Every structure is written in structure tokens, then in C-alpha cells.
């Protein structure tokens, strides 16, 4: 049994790295048929697969098209496995509202960040591109988000990020959310300046930043 389990987990990992959505789904289905724990299959099969893919992306072995296809494979696997996750495992999903700030339509980077966060198990609500500051606030309130993640690639639109923080303050709900920022012209210094909680230079570091922010001090309701 354990041998089969290890093999299936390895197959899942390989299928993701080989960008094979059909194989990923079929293997996930086999995991279920064999009565193997779905959560473990995600944790030890799909997640390492996506980690390898994002390492290959960092090493410029893979590029954006490969990352997108791998993500689809992971989503396919998750769709099969999720319904079988036993209730108690990791409690409530952390919710993240992500989008590109008003005036800017560059959304390739934001989509990569969303994908990495989703494949790491976060629930991500994507509000799209060219999004006015108040939409972020409304959406975050509506879904009860833990994190607001703001992306922009343009210096001329960065200021909109500060506005999100100001709106939260004005409504007296700044403490309810962690606000993180990213995109080429951003920096930790800019994040400090506008009173955000942190800056991440790329998708993987955004995931690490969120983990750090949420474990360091629990979000006050």
C-alpha cells in the first residue's frame, strides 16, 4: 500500500512537472479509487510538482506558458481531490483578494502570483485589472478577506495602492486586513511609505510573506 501510495504521489508530481493535465487528473482519480488520503496527495504529490515547476521557472528552464499549463494540471488534480479532503485538516482557508490597481492593465505577473497562492492552498478572489481602490476594500469586506494583495507595473499608478490603505483607515478597519504590494516599480521602502504590511518581489516570496504575516500575529477580527 505505502509503495503504491508513494508511486502515485510521485506520478502526480511528475504529471504536473511534465505539464500533463490529463495524467494529473487520472492519477488523482486513482488516488481516490485506492482510498488514499486526498489531503496527503495534494501535499506530497501536487504541491511538490508545482514547487518544481516554479523552481524551473526561476531557473529559466520553464517560462510563463509552461507555468500556466502546469497550474491547469494542478487545478485539475485539485478538482478531483478536494471533495475528498476530510473535514478537520487545516481549518478555515485563508482568503486573499488580489488585483491590479486602477489605470494599469498589466496582469501577467498578478496572475502568476494568484496561481502560486492558489496552488499553495489559499483561497484567492481575483478582482482583475484596472481596479479602483474602493473595489478592493468593498470586495475584501464582502468576502471577509484576510489579505489584500495589490499589484502594479507602472510608476504612474502606484499611488492608488496608498489609497487602498487610506480607505481602510478611514473606515476604521485597517487592522482587519494585511495589505501586501508587488510589481516591478514597487519596493519595501514604498510599502513602508504607504503603510502597507509588506512587499514581495515575486510570486513565491508573496506566498512566504503572507505566511509570515499571518503567523506572526493573528489577524484581529
Amino acid at each position: 500500500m505505502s509503495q503504491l501510495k508513494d508511486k502515485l504521489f510521485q506520478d502526480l508530481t511528475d504529471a504536473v512537472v511534465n505539464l500533463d493535465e490529463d495524467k494529473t487528473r487520472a492519477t488523482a482519480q486513482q488516488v481516490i479509487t485506492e482510498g488514499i488520503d486526498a489531503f496527503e496527495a495534494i501535499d506530497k504529490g501536487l504541491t511538490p510538482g508545482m514547487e518544481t515547476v516554479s523552481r524551473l521557472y526561476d531557473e529559466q528552464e520553464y517560462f510563463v506558458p509552461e507555468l500556466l499549463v502546469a497550474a491547469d494540471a494542478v487545478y485539475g488534480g485539485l478538482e478531483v481531490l478536494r471533495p475528498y479532503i476530510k473535514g478537520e485538516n487545516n481549518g478555515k482557508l485563508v482568503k486573499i483578494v488580489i488585483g491590479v490597481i486602477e489605470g494599469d492593465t498589466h496582469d501577467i505577473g498578478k496572475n502568476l502570483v494568484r496561481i502560486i497562492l492558489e496552488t499553495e492552498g489559499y483561497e484567492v478572489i481575483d478582482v482583475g485589472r484596472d481596479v479602483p481602490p474602493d473595489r478592493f476594500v468593498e470586495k475584501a469586506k464582502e468576502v471577509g478577506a484576510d489579505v489584500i494583495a495589490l499589484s502594479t507595473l507602472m510608476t504612474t499608478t502606484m499611488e492608488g495602492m496608498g489609497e487602498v490603505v487610506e480607505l481602510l483607515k478611514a473606515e476604521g478597519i485597517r487592522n482587519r486586513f494585511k495589505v501586501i504590494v508587488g510589481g516591478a516599480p514597487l519596493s519595501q521602502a514604498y510599502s513602508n511609505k504607504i503603510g502597507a504590511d509588506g512587499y514581495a518581489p515575486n510570486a513565491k516570496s508573496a506566498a512566504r510573506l503572507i505566511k509570515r504575516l499571518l503567523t506572526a500575529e493573528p489577524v484581529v477580527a
Partner: protein
Amino acid sequence: MGEQNPKQRLLNVLHQEVADRPPVVCIGGMMNAAIVDVMNTTGHTLPDAHFDENLMALLAQDVARYTGFENIAVPFCMTVEAELLGSEIDYGSLACEPKISKEAFSSVGNVSFPEFKGLPDTCRANTVIKAVRKLKDKRLDDPVIASITGPFTTAASWIDPITFIKEMRTNGLGAHRVLEHVTEVLVEFASELVRNGADVIALGDPTATGEILGPSHFKNFALPYLNELIDRIHKLGAPVIVHICGDIKPIEKQIMNIRGDAISTDAMVNLKALKEAYPDLTTMGNLSTYLLEFGNPEKITQVTRRLLHDGIDIISPACGLSTSTTLSNINALTGTVKKKSKK
């Protein structure tokens, strides 16, 4: 050698003939130089100038006059092509460039290919063509550069970009079919621009960067269509500048296969090293967009001098200009290049 006029100088460099010094230019389109400072001074403003050929021509001349760039460039955005194909455009404001508000199709699989019957009279592509005609008729000393968005970027502005980028892998044939259609439309647009007097065509294909596509997709899905477009423009007698965004390292070997007359690159690219590696290449660039916006004239002068010293053939901003860049910073760039001839 006597001083050449800006048009002669640029054309000479593009034809690999002798020039008295490097030209300093900004190609328009994705590298729009209609900054807020200029528009507020002259009152010829965006977004209005996107729609009116007279205003477009006037603003293009204002830009050359106040910035010191030695060319006239139209249009001021990179959405004309996608609009022609049916995507929805948000025309932006004085300070914010136009953008695609909604691509016409969500996926390669959904595209209906209308028969392309030439450019409709009322499209903005025609406004650009008419503006070029007006500029041509003024017989200016400055070359008129018409900027066109490259095939891959246009395709990824016609179809949802994330899906399109993915579909190179999952529906390669469909992606090629889209790119063929887009290239056909762009050839028509480019041809009209040349016939109406554009001295140079500049192609910017920012979504087709080495960092996004990687070498194999660049080779299969970007390069052939760029070259097709370039060849057809060459047949009409106009030289072509190609701008590649981002770090070119993943696609460096492909650069020599681009059949354009000059390659313009982003700021992180070491143009001196590129020139050494490929001595036949006509290089253009690459003063950082961010330095131009946030730097000071002294630093900009210093970096411009280095580009001149390194023998870069055409001096220009790296990859774009923020609309809030100041005139004093841009003039530090253009002024430094122009001073070279007086030495």
C-alpha cells in the same frame, strides 16, 4: 562632414551608412513621449489627440519640439491595432495611456475570422495614417516614425493574454492561425503608413519578451510573424526598428535572426556587450525608463555619455516613458547627444 539633418542621420544609421553622430529618438506607440508637461504647455492634449489627425500631428510636433527628440512619432498608444480587430478600448486620460478594457475573444478556440477587407474609414488606424500624411506634407527635417504594435502583442490584446500565452502550448495550430490573421492586418496598416509618408516603421512587441515566452516559443510564435511584417515593409522601401522588452538573454541567439534594421532594448541589456557579440547589429537604446522619471539631469547626462562612448548607434529611452517624466530630464538626454557633434 557637414551636419546632417535628423532625417538623413537616422536613415543613414538604419542603412548602415555614415552618420555625423548618433540620432536621439523616441519611437512613439508603446514608447509614447507625449508627457503631461508638454501637453499642459501647448494645450494639445490626450485623450483628444488619439481621435483627430490634426491634433495628433500637432501634438507629435510639440513633443519633438519640447523634448528635443529628433523625430516625429505617432500614435501615442498601442491600442490602435487591437481596436481595429474588435477589442474594447479605454482611452485613458491626460496622464494615463489607453488600455484594452476587454479583449475581443477569451480564447483562440472562440475566434471568428472575419474576412479582412482593408482598413475601415472610421477607425483610429486611419486617423494615424492621415496624421502621417499631414506630417509628410509639412516636409519637416525630422523623420516621421510610425509605431506599430507587433503581431504577438496584438494577438494577446485581441485574445485574453493569459489564455493566448497558454494556448501556444495547448492549441498551437489555433495560435498560429490567429497570428497569421493579425500579421495580415498589421501588414495592411504598415503599408498604408509607408505609402502615406512614414519614413520609418517601429515595431514594439512587449508581450513577446524572452522572459515571458522563452527561446522556443519566441522562435516559433513571435519571430516568424515579426519577420513577415518586416519583409513586407522593406518591400515598400521603409526601414524598420524593432523594440524588444525585458531581458533578452533567453532569446539572445534569436536577435540576429530578426530582419529589422535596428534593435532597441530594455535598460537591463548591456548594449555594449551585445554590439561586441554581434558587430553587424545596429543597436538602439537604452536609457532606463525609471532613471528618466526619478533621476536627475546630472545622472542622466552621465549615463547618456556612457551610451555615446560605448558606440550605441541610436540613443533612446529604454522601453517606454512615464507620462510624468519631466522635460528637464528628457532634455538632459537629448541635449547630451546633440552636444556630441559640437565637439
